[in-house]
């Protein structure tokens, strides 16, 4: 599927989930739709850590749905995190992998074993039953069921290589403000204490 179509579909399916975005295309395309001021999402600047971050968030907030939207360039840096997620499988966590088989953010060198890796096969072999890949728009409906029903899900969106070349919707803020925006969103919308009584 086209990158645009995959993210437009995710955006249409998205409601109240907390969203953790992997570095690069995941953040870029999400921000293109929702704008960089979307405080319901946390965009990672560390490759390979979105799944782990989402797992920690899901474990700490078991009643809040959490989506991780990651790229396969990032996942391969922390491939063992599939096992970590597979062991716990929180009902409220959905891991969405946009797979283009290249390091898209740096213009496309192949990731290791690019042509052969079956991510869904790996997840299933690790014990994740709710795993599927989407390679055409016709499969979006089945994928929606996976995303919108309880149970840990591992969804692979097989997207075309090379996101369209166009200006990146860069956020005009960085690290600490990313933290405060997401933390204040959680405090405001979910009534929890993240920053403590002083509020910083």
């Amino acid at each position, binding site marked *: 599927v086209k990158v645009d179509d995959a993210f437009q579909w995710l955006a249409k399916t998205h409601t109240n989930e907390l969203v953790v975005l992997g570095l690069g295309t995941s953040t870029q395309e999400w921000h293109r739709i929702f704008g960089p001021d979307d405080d319901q999402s946390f965009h990672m600047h560390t490759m390979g850590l979105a799944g782990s971050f989402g797992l920690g968030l899901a474990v*700490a907030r078991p009643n809040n749905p959490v989506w991780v939207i990651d790229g396969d360039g990032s996942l391969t840096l922390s491939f063992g995190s599939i096992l970590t997620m597979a062991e716990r499988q929180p009902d409220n966590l959905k891991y969405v992998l946009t797979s283009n088989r290249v390091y898209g953010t740096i213009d496309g060198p192949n990731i290791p074993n690019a042509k052969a890796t079956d991510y869904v096969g790996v997840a299933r072999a690790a014990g994740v039953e709710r795993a599927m890949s989407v390679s055409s728009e016709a499969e979006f409906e089945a994928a929606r069921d996976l995303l919108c029903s309880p149970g840990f899900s591992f969804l692979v969106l097989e997207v075309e290589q090379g996101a369209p070349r166009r200006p990146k919707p860069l956020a005009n803020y960085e690290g600490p403000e990313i933290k405060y925006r997401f933390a204040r969103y959680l405090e405001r919308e979910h009534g929890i204490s993240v920053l403590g009584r002083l509020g910083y």
Partner: protein
Amino acid sequence: VVSGLPDDWVVPLLSLIEADDEMTYVPVARESEAIGVCAGAWFGGARPAAVMGIAGLLACGHELVTLNLAHQIPLFVVASLRGGLDDQLTYQVGQGLVAKPYLDALGIPHDTMSEPAELVGLGAAWTRATLLKRPYVVYLTKNLLLEKAGAQ
């Protein structure tokens, strides 16, 4: 929420944590994952801790810098302090040599606890991580981590 990966000294501590109903233990396949798990859990309102051996902590530099330090996200880490005079394994000695300079270079404050009476300071160390808005590492020595350390 406690997330970690053991070395041989940290095994007994992680076993206690895993058996404790008041803690949620998330085992990871590589220590850097624990950095991410703890950050996510912190945003979820938990009071997380990462527990690992020094080898794992040395492998977390990129995550500590680009996640915790760059975003000012607090993190409490308990790690084994390998390579001291209580540890005569060749490869651990090498790690022990760099354990503290490594954290100093990253600008990450740390303490070393070697006596049971010092453990009362663990809570204050967690609070210090939140006040400083950065990682805070407590190294524990062999005699604290291994019950029968004296006999080994």
